[in-house]
């Protein structure tokens, strides 16, 4: 077993109102970042775990996302990185 650090991005699903993202976008516009079209605010979760190989570390964290870390009704997740420690 090798230790891995797996990072996950979790974002509100497109089409679902994200009031935090909208508030941040409004604030960016107020700061003259007029080109900002959309902001979504989500979570970044870093899990350290052990697995036989990189693929299985990623598979395990996907399973964690489906069962706990993300809500399949309202959120999308993606594996941002998998690194051996």
């Amino acid at each position: 077993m090798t230790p891995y650090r797996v990072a996950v991005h979790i974002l509100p699903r497109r089409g679902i109102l994200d009031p935090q993202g909208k508030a941040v976008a409004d604030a960016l516009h107020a700061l003259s970042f007029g080109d900002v079209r959309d902001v979504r605010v989500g979570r970044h979760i870093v899990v350290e775990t052990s697995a036989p190989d990189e693929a299985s570390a990623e598979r395990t964290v996907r399973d964690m996302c489906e069962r706990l870390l993300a809500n399949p009704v309202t959120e999308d997740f993606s594996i941002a990185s998998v690194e051996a420690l």
Partner: protein
Amino acid sequence: MKFGIVTFPGSNCDYDAYHAVVDALGEEAVYLWHKDHDLRGADLVVLPGGFSYGDYLRAGAIARFSPIMREVIAHAERGGPVLAICNGFQIACEAGLLPGALLRNASLCFICEPVRLRVENTDTMFTNQYRRGQILRIPIAHGEGRFTADPDVLDRLEGEGQVVFRYVNEAGAATAEANPNGSERNIAGIVSPRGNVMGMMPHPERAVDALLGSTDGLPLFESILARVSA
């Protein structure tokens, strides 16, 4: 009738629920600790409001894995009644007992105020003592009460009469202004397909004393009794 009221770490409406059941309704209630493995003979389970596990990750996301929830889910699968209020509603959705999810209020503000609800379906074990279309005055107190589900799920809820309460204005109209949290279609409370699990963001247990401004929550508890003794 025996009500089992679950206390999670961070629950804060368990005493209000106990007061509603024991003092206002005159029935028996027991507290069920989240680490318990049995329902201690409860006929109905209340998942009360609060901030279980500090709302970490998502409201209700951690509480659904409490040991007691395994028993609550089994109870619901047997057709046993579950009343899930506020944080309890969030937990019930996370546990898959009810469809949809509850997200941050559209205003991003925690809202604590009385709201008006319209009773949409009186043919449930939780609402049979109300009149269809009756307007209730019941408080809300939440930061994450924006009910959300896929459009086809929402259509099914509407079609099957599972939408039980809707936020409305004084005239009884479900307007955007009367929607405190941005819930889809002004939905404030729903029941499961079998009708034995009810989830609602407003607090009926805080509306059982005239002294506290409203007794509109009491018929909800009386409905449960009426159905059981019927």
